[in-house]
């Protein structure tokens, strides 16, 4: 009962200043199931800081531990001994999820099927014991915020996927949570809806300034929504940085490859200040001594063969609409990927000249 009273005051507070979120040494090991193998380390002990009001995206391939991290933050999962979760200055490690004041948005919406839109949004407010007037007012605000006007009385099974996810978002936001957690909220939607809802969620997160953690395996979503991105690999954070840092200065071959496409250029030697690569030479002042350099397909330019630094033969073209992707054989093990304007016509077998600006090249510390 005592906690109840505290909670009521909590939820009535005016939109307070956003809080920071810190994980300290949070790992998670699942015991091996019966009849099978040893304990499974889903998450290596990790530290993670989310600034007040920031949106941090956890990005990574399936099974890398994104959901596990999110569940540790929410309180649905306990970290292994020694792990700590801090909301602002409060250690919430021992608090169960219902006392943590987190909002959750799931991939499968998780709307209460026995309640209509309004009742779903009002649920958390009802639990907190708000007066009917306050509940009605807050639900109204939320409905406006997520553009669901006119659908208040609909049973949730009559909504489209996008509308369902808007209800879920409104339901999570209605209680003014301290931290908002998303687990692949757009993964079940079709491309068009996904884009629209992504824009809406992005605007909401920016305007509300609520501390959020957003799990996805879609890199475009990650870059559009994240103030910072943590790229995860095998239960650890491979790189943490702004979308720009991650894209232009990937810290590992894994990150470079996971975010966008990347070309790998093996350096065969240096001659007169130029680096020899398959199909030609690069005139660069830096990177002497490097054995491998990388560049993005869109940073390679097509130019007349006579002025080209690298020449090759077009193997295949993929028309993408806004551009086209060329696969060029330069004699290297893997073809070079080049993004070129979509109006140029290239046929397989044609000889093509390419140039790469020095700024477009980058090296990666852990690469060999």
């Amino acid at each position: 009962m005592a906690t109840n009273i505290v909670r009521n005051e909590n939820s009535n507070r005016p939109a307070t200043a956003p809080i920071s979120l810190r994980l300290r040494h949070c790992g998670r090991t699942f015991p091996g199931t019966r009849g099978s193998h040893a304990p499974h380390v889903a998450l290596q002990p990790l530290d993670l800081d989310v600034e007040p009001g920031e949106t941090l995206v956890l990005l990574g391939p399936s099974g890398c531990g994104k959901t596990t991290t999110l569940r540790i933050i929410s309180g649905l999962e306990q970290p292994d001994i020694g792990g700590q979760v801090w909301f602002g200055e409060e250690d919430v490690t021992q608090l169960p999820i219902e006392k943590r004041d987190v909002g959750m948005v799931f991939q499968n919406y998780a709307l209460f099927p026995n309640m209509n839109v309004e009742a779903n949004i009002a649920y958390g407010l009802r639990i907190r014991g708000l007066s009917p007037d306050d509940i009605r007012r807050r639900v109204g605000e939320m409905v406006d915020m997520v553009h669901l006007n006119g659908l208040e009385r609909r049973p949730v099974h009559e909504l489209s996927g996008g509308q369902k996810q808007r209800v879920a978002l409104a339901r999570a936001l209605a209680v003014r949570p301290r931290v908002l957690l998303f687990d692949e909220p757009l993964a079940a939607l079709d491309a068009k809806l996904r884009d629209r809802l992504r824009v809406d969620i992005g605007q909401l997160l920016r305007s509300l300034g609520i501390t959020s953690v957003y799990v996805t395996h879609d890199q475009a979503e990650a870059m559009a929504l994240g103030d910072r991105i943590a790229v995860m690999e095998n239960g650890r954070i491979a790189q943490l940085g702004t979308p720009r840092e991650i894209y232009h200065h990937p810290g590992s071959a894994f990150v470079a490859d996971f975010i966008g496409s990347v070309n790998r250029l093996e350096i065969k030697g240096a001659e007169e200040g130029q680096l020899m690569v398959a199909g030609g030479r690069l005139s660069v002042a830096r990177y002497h001594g490097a054995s491998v350099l990388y560049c993005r397909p869109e940073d390679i330019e097509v130019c007349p063969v006579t002025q080209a630094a690298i020449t090759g033969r077009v193997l295949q073209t993929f028309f993408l609409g806004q551009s086209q992707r060329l696969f060029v054989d330069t004699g290297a093990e893997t073809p070079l990927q080049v993004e070129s304007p979509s109006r140029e016509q290239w046929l397989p077998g044609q000889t093509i000249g390419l140039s790469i600006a020095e700024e477009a090249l980058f090296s990666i510390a852990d690469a060999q």
Partner: protein
Amino acid sequence: MSPDRRESRRQPRSGAVFEGRSVPKGRRRLRGWSWMLAPALGFFLAFWLLPFVRLIVMGAGPDNNTGIAGYWMVLTHEQYLSSLMSTLLLSIAVSVSAVLIAGFCGYFLARHQFPGKSWLLSMLTFPLAFPGVVVGFLVIMLGGRQGALAQLSLWATGERWTFAYSLTGLFVGYLYFSIPRVIMTVMAACEKMDTSLEEAARSLGANTRQVVVDVIIPAIRPALISTGAICFATSMGAFGTVFTLGTRINVVPIAIYGEFTNYANFAMAAALSVILGLVTWISLFFARRLSGEYVGGGA
């Protein structure tokens, strides 16, 4: 069948096409069906409908002693009415208690993993395999004159406490074979349930009680209703257990047996049978409507 046929006329693709002429698939299928249906119909008529109609007609016949029509006797005569009422109340009590007790157990078992769980589950389902006679015998072992409770009370107070030969004994026995069935149904429903619903409710601040009331019960309501209805129907018609416990317990199946075997009072036996069948059928019917899922009858 008819929309299928119309469809096939408009779109020859859905029927076989021979020399540009489409053969409607639906009609062919219907003709095949009617052949298959004939023996089934014959069987239905011979073994179900005929005896049943005869039973209904017989129930309207005169009672041996009073000459009053059987159905009217059941509804007006103290002895039959009380037997009907006690059977109804007993069955309601059994199904409500079974759903309450086993509902919690089933939810707990579905949501928790512990060593020995599969062993416990197979023990729990054991009573499902027992015939009513054996269940009756078990109740006597527990609450009969030589039963465990009697031994215990004899030692403690010098008196033999028994409950086996009464409605209480019957209640215990019926509970005994209802609970496993409810546990199994509830467990299956809980495992099918989307756990993120519970998690969403908890993230919004709901405590365990609120999660159960707002999320879990609504989600497994169809399972609770249907399994409750089956328990009710089973308890209404069960015979073996009560027969073992003694024919002095006044429930409808025993009454039917008594009228038929002891007094050759066929009208009364038929009337009671029809009413028993009707009550059971109605309960299953409503359960099906309310739960939206298929509900089969009990043993």
